[in-house]
């Protein structure tokens, strides 16, 4: 069996109660979470808000360390830092606007990501930035624009381009389409699908929107009360608590087409 790209082993993360007035006790946000992502695979993580999805994403990215357990990327513990492998593990976040430095042009942001790992000669840089922009469906001329001159969907495309620049093997998508409108969501998902097909990049797709998961992911895991369990495709009768949670989430998905009697409860 080949080595998994990303593996979490019994990861636990707890937060101390915050603030002076807080009466909350320290609680486990993640409790003994284990998962594996194989090369080229797409694993969907579903959960309601507050289930610990973002914490999980940050640990999977190696920017936060678990309190117990291990987070391994290509078999190496990320607690020791990723070093050169940083380029292989990239991310796209929910809020594209705040993920881009408002003072830097699109081209500068992309160039930064390109230059960090292998210096591109000055003459080639503009061309490389242009190629990247074209890969995500933008025009090379957009490189001179500032983020605020782009729409939300275009900004998210720039973020995707930035994540693709170092040719990663795994991209963590933390609610990457959730704050976009429906039309743009569909476009971005198509874009991600085609990129995955073209470059064999694996995705860890973290979302609350379970309607997207079956069409986009190979496997689904449900995060509930800090624990993570992989569930099937939801076609069997739910037995375990996580399957029930998934069923509950799926049941909350709105109908794709109008019901016979609209508005009826």
């Amino acid at each position, binding site marked *: 069996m080949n080595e998994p790209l990303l593996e979490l082993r019994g990861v636990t993360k707890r937060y101390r109660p915050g603030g002076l007035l807080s009466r909350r006790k320290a609680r486990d946000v993640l409790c003994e979470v284990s998962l594996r992502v194989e090369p080229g695979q797409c694993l969907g993580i579903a959960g309601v808000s507050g289930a610990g999805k973002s914490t999980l994403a940050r640990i999977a990215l190696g*920017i936060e360390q678990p309190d117990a357990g291990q987070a391994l990327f290509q078999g190496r513990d990320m607690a020791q830092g990723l070093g050169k492998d940083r*380029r292989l593990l990239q991310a796209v976040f929910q809020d594209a606007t*705040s993920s881009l430095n408002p003072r*830097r042009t699109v081209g500068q942001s992309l160039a930064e990501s390109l230059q960090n*790992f292998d210096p591109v000669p000055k003459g080639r840089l503009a061309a490389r930035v242009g190629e990247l922009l074209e890969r995500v469906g933008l025009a090379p001329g957009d490189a001179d624009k500032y983020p605020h001159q782009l729409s939300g969907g275009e900004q998210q495309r720039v973020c995707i381009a930035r994540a693709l620049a170092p040719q990663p093997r795994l991209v963590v998508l933390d609610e990457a389409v959730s704050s976009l409108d429906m039309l743009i969501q569909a476009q971005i998902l198509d874009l991600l699908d085609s990129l995955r097909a073209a470059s064999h990049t694996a995705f860890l797709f973290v979302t609350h929107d379970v309607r997207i998961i079956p069409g986009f992911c190979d496997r689904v895991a449900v995060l509930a009360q800090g624990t993570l369990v992989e569930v099937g495709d939801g076609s069997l009768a739910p037995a375990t608590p996580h399957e029930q949670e998934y069923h509950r989430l799926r049941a909350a998905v709105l109908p794709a087409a109008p019901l016979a009697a609209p508005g009826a409860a």
Partner: protein
Amino acid sequence: MTPRTAAFLRPWSTRLALALLGLVLGLGLLAPLASPRDPNLVDVDRKFAPPSWEEPLGADHLGRSVLARIVHGARVSLLVVVAILGLNMALGLSLGSLAGFAGGRVDALLMRICDVFLTFPTFFLALFLVGLLGPGLFNVILAVAATHWAWYARLTRGMVLGLKHREYVLAARISGTGPVRLVTRHVLPPILAQLLVMAGLDVGHMMLHVAGLSFLGLGVKPPTPEWGVMISDARQFVGSHPELIMYPGLMIFLTVMAFNLLGDALRDALDPGLDHGH
């Protein structure tokens, strides 16, 4: 010229402020040319000489050329302000970012020190420090800087706290940007912009402090031409020769106003533009 510079220069108030500052700066730089007379040359025969072709602003109670003293005073006043500003920026930026990035106890300690400086009325603190250090140009600079740096440190620390968790800083980290570039590219620029805005609004305040200390005889030592000293000298004759107090007063007023207008313009130019779009 970039569109942002054009937008910055559009309001007439900005252009007025720049013109005034240019004038004061020019006067200071070209002081020996603009007024060939020695500002400290005492000539009792010319005591309170009225304005004339040779002496457009007349002479003061010791027969010194008022124009020469005003022009040379611009040098001293601007130099003092620039020195104080530099100190404030350096102290504020370094201690503020140290507190913001280090957090924890370092942060708590530095911020309590800031609080101590912030709780004193600034002028009395400056008076106290000058009293402690003794009068003199250098000590005035130290004293006024000491009363102002805490504001800069506070602002810097607050912005560092906000920025270090901003998603674009995180995103840059993930795309492999090293810590030095992270700070110089993503964290410092917005902070510098804010500090500049604050400095523009603060300079007038500092000039008044320096002039005030000089007026009280604690700042620049009397023969040196400085606007606060000139006001202090002229106040004894305010009944018979009110114009002697008016000239340096007018210069302080114009310079302070120019800096304030410039501060406003900087705020408008650097603050909103990027975040709200056009």
